[in-house]
């Protein structure tokens, strides 16, 4: 009897210690996905049109995960999706921060999670080198495909999942079955995902070339050679914007790739600019966030933060939100560049802040997941 009691206690403790497996509630399917769904992918604009976000950084909730973020955060069906380095993807309630459950994957989900209806797609980093499609309604792995050294982030264009990889390939997979529809070889490593806009797909490579492809068959329409390696996805607005690690922002004409303007910033750029309000917001590792006129490249404002900004800035309505490698989150007035609020978290911020339009969510390398928002004081 004693042994049975002991076993029961152990089982209870184990059960309490284990998180529930995440299963997508069919009712939540109706909740619109917020990020990166507004423009189908985060890399394209890095912005969300919203009047609800106040620009304030009042801490709404803070969660501590025992692993670190492995890829970008996303928001689907009312849940904040957190891909962790311990081969688990965690889902959090957007409002309360309550953990809804976990999804175990067989590797580190470097791409983060991108969803189509109830299917979650994720690419796993070396040494796993796999792409999985998992049905979250019944937690079943449906399909898998090999992919080598996948780039962080991915997009869905025309019902095709586009994934870029370190062996220089951009592959379009059928969402149903992960069969390869087409493949494009850049000839060099792709460290950043593709973007889409103007009916085209833009794939940067690490030799500073933007390959512009047809989303239908992956044929190359033209390519643009820039000054140094591209480590981030291009942003797409009226023009196409590519930032290179020598600190230059280039604006390209979507039709033929003509360089309309280019501006040199004060530090290397490892992230994608955000586009909106006829402006382009870029952050560089030299410790600055800059707003440029999207049409001319003229500098509108320049905010010196004196800390490395590795993650892309995010534009939420009239506010620019950025995180630094010392864990500082700042909100700037998108019009003036004035600092509106700042909050320091424990751990570096290596992935862009995400938003559902009301709040902003940030994950740090110490496993902190924070939700900010609140009314203007």
């Amino acid at each position: 009897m004693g042994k049975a009691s002991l076993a029961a206690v152990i089982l209870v403790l184990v059960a309490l210690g284990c998180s529930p497996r995440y299963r997508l509630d069919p009712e939540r399917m109706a909740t619109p996905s917020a990020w990166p769904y507004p423009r189908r992918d985060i890399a394209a604009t890095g912005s969300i049109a919203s009047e609800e976000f106040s620009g304030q950084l009042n801490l709404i909730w803070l969660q501590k995960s025992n692993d670190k973020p492995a890829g970008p955060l996303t928001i689907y069906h009312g849940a904040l999706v957190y891909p962790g380095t311990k081969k688990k993807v965690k889902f959090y309630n957007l409002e309360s921060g309550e953990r809804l459950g976990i999804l175990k994957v067989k590797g580190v989900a470097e791409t983060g999670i991108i969803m189509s209806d109830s299917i979650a797609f994720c690419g796993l980093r070396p040494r796993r080198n796999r792409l999985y499609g998992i049905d979250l309604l019944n937690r079943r792995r449906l399909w898998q495909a090999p992919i080598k050294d996948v780039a962080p982030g991915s997009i869905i264009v025309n019902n095709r999942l586009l994934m870029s990889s370190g062996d220089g390939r951009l592959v379009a997979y059928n969402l149903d079955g992960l069969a390869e529809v087409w493949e494009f070889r850049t000839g060099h490593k792709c460290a950043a995902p593709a973007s889409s806009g103007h009916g085209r797909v833009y794939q940067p490579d690490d030799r500073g070339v933007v390959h512009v492809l047809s989303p239908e068959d992956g044929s190359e329409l033209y390519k643009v050679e820039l000054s140094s390696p591209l480590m981030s996805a291009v942003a797409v607005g009226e023009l196409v914007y590519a930032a290179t690690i020598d600190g230059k922002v280039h604006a390209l004409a979507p039709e033929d790739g003509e360089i309309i303007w280019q501006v040199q910033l004060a530090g290397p750029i490892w992230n994608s600019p955000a586009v909106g309000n006829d402006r382009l917001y870029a952050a560089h590792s030299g410790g600055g966030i800059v707003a440029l006129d999207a049409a001319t490249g003229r500098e509108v404002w320049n905010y010196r933060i004196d800390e490395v900004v590795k993650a892309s800035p995010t534009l939420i309505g009239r506010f620019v939100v950025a995180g630094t490698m010392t864990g500082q989150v700042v909100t700037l007035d998108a019009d003036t560049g004035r600092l509106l609020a700042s909050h320091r978290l424990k751990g570096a911020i290596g992935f862009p802040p995400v938003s559902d339009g009301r709040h902003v969510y940030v994950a740090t390398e110490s496993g902190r997941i924070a939700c900010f928002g609140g009314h203007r004081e």
Partner: protein
Amino acid sequence: MIPVSRCDGYRMQLCNSNLFRTISRLLLVSACALILSVSDAYGQFFFGKNKVQYTDFRWKVMTTDHFNLYFYEDEQEVASIAAGIAEKAYRELAAKFNHEVRRKIPLIIYSSPRYFSQTNVTPGLVPESVGGFTEFLKGRVVVPFDGSYAEFAHVIKHELVHVMTISRLKYEIYRQHRAQYTWPPLWFIEGLAEHWSEDWDAEADMILADMVLGDRIIPIMDLWTIRGSYFTYKLGQSILRFIELEYGADKPVMIFENWAKARKFEEIVELTLGDNLEELSRKWEYWLKKQYFPGFDELGLPRMESTQLTHDGFSVKGVPIEWDDGHGQRSWLVFLANRMGYTGLYMKPRNESKKGIRTLLKGERSAKFESLHLLRSGIDANDSGLVVFSSLSKERDYLYVYDLNRGKVVRQFDFPDLISATSPRLSADGSRIVFSGARPSGFRDIYVVDVTTGNYRRITDDIYYDVDPAFSPGGESVVFASDRGPDGPGGAVNLFSYSFATDSLSQLTHGSYQDRTPDVTDHGIYFSSNRSGTNNIFLLQGDGRLMRQSTYATGAFDPRLTRDGEDLLYTGYEGMRFKIYSMALPEQPEPLATHGQRRTMPWLPERIDTSVSDASVKYDTDYSFDIAQSTVAYDPVYGTLGGVQGLFTDMLGNHMFHFVVSNTAEDKDDFLESFNVGVTYVNLENRFNWGVGGYHLVNHNRYFTNDEIPYRLRQAGGVGLLSYPFSKFLRVDLASYARYEKKDLDEIIVFREGFLLTNLVSVVYDNSLWEHSGPIEGHRYNLTFALTNAFSEPFTHNRMAWVDIRHYLRLTKASAFANRIFWYSSSGVEPRRIYFGGSWSFRGFSRRDFYSRNILFASNELRFPLVDNILIGFPMGELGFQAIRGALFFDVGSALDDKELLRIPESLYGSFGAGFRVSLGYFVQLRFDFSRVINKGFKSVRRSTDFDFFFGWNF
């Protein structure tokens, strides 16, 4: 400028360290004073050169955005400059690494390399060639200022790259939950530090051009064979440069980004670049050849186009003189060289012959000539046979005059207010010497000393880097190199002239170059400069016309015109060595430019904001953990032992607490009373190193009385330590142990119980030169005498004397004959007996074959090289050995009782054999000895061969 290695981030020369000796000793004291009676192994640690704290620094701390900058009062201005440099470098590197260090970086600044060598941040001696280092336990950066702002900025930035590298790797490892991680190879660490701290320059070109043109390029996979050398830095820099240029500027950072995606560095490189190391190496070698071969048709190599005057080792700063030695030889070359590991002053006939070299003075063996500054100071000589040179003696530099006619040093010039005095040059009439001197504040100026009176005066007085002075032939002016020109902020060094008549300065050469080591002659001024890409010799004529004199692909420095005005002597670089060459003066070449004389334009180095520097506060001792470790050991006699030890030190390494905790209980009843606890505090702040401690030690039945009865020994007491170094080589150690001791057999028989006081004095000398497997030249001795008194006894409880003398006779570059004489004796009421035998003492015998209060022992060993740098493949991978050395040895000795002392020959044992010493790099040495024992009285030889395997150096 001749390069010196600037950073020694990895190498910590524990082996020769006074501090290491101290720590080792304190460990032993804390752990068990009775080790004295257990083994002589500790005797190996009772040597070591001394790091002497000649100066009492009053430390302060300046806090900036990213640094805690530690400095002392004399260098307030240098500290402000350092803070400005460091903050600027930090921002640049943070952007390059795409990373932030989330703690204040401790940056410790010294205003002179002479002070820097006294730092306690690293336990080892700091060689003169080290220009700064990053310490890994607390992430401290330690950098000296030697007058050059450009070099100061370079070294600070270089070390900050190390800080960033460590931080970035920790970040990736932490982020990916990796318990074990790969550490990058040294070529990557140092190459990245060089690549991101300075532009590709003439010095780097010199090394790479020599390697490429001489077909000496080392493939990337084999760079471990030169680890620790300056070549690792420059080859690494070249590889990183190649990666950025050919694979993309993102790739160095992407290597860090990909750190957790693979297990081995080779895999990370392949994942990042798409090429494996072999392919990368092939492409890099091909790229180098394409870079250097095209220019080779217009350039030459020193050995092919000049007469090589010196041949062995490194030779620099050659001075031609016409001096009659009394045997008809008139043309001589006086030079500095490191031919066998030590730097010395030499002369030889000025011809190609390898013969006739005379050693004028051996440096680095005595306190008077601690360092002759091989690569940092010039020398001079005249036809009267006077040679003037600089030498470090204890803390400061002195100038010395050596008279060739009398064959000895005849004059010493002392400059009490200077910490450094280098590159002396005589005036033509020999009445004055001009030299570059540095004040304790760190700033370098030009000084002139009157040879007759010894009076000296400063002729420049400012913050600029003034070096390499030389008199004009008539003595009316001094030409020197300085960064005071308009290009100085960018690191340029040009030539300037000081006129004694007008007390004014004028700039002679211009441009962003390194114009150094002028020789002012009737032809004009010969000097070395990188204005042609690599360093070559140029002539600036009196009318301002500048002409190139040499066209070497590698490098030429230190020009000196011979008395007849027909040949030019210079230091040339080729075959990875500096040698002295003689070249005929070229036909009048086309002038490159005309340099007019200009007045100097002052500039000021950037400083941190005064509000920051003024807010500096007094340094408050700030302790943190250095090491905490547990140990479990098994001994066939003593059984299993375990314990924990830890070390707390302050930020400057001046204060340390060491503690040891272990338990020697043999059953649970003994547990509480069997704790061995030792705590020691050591103060290394001043020249007097002192320490105090307390301990409680219990050992159950692990020692034996004279009648071989095991006993338990319990000790509790305190220890006081004092060590005074007279110089780098000689010190006196004093120690006092006051303790309660109980010696019993399971509480049934109490052999002794009481209070004892042991006082111990040691005289230790060590000027040995080490190579891979141990000392190879010089000598060491340790003379120790101890008295133990019991408080309850009116007479001396016991006496102990210990003599250990070791001498190393150098035979060739890597071979030596070593001998050791050891005598131990203890007497009194309760004499101490020691164990003797084993690989580190009497080979052929086991560690406890001898147990006596009288030991007499002599060891002779012939050490010779077998293999250098060998890579052996094993199924689990390749293993590289830096060096394999051989040894033939013959030992003789005995443990003697009182009666046997009178008939030593009959009681002697002997052993002979051969061994191998395998260096696995850094501190790890494997020793294999095969020996045969000669039985007592030398009457027969045992048939069996004893094999011994051991980790450790040669004696």
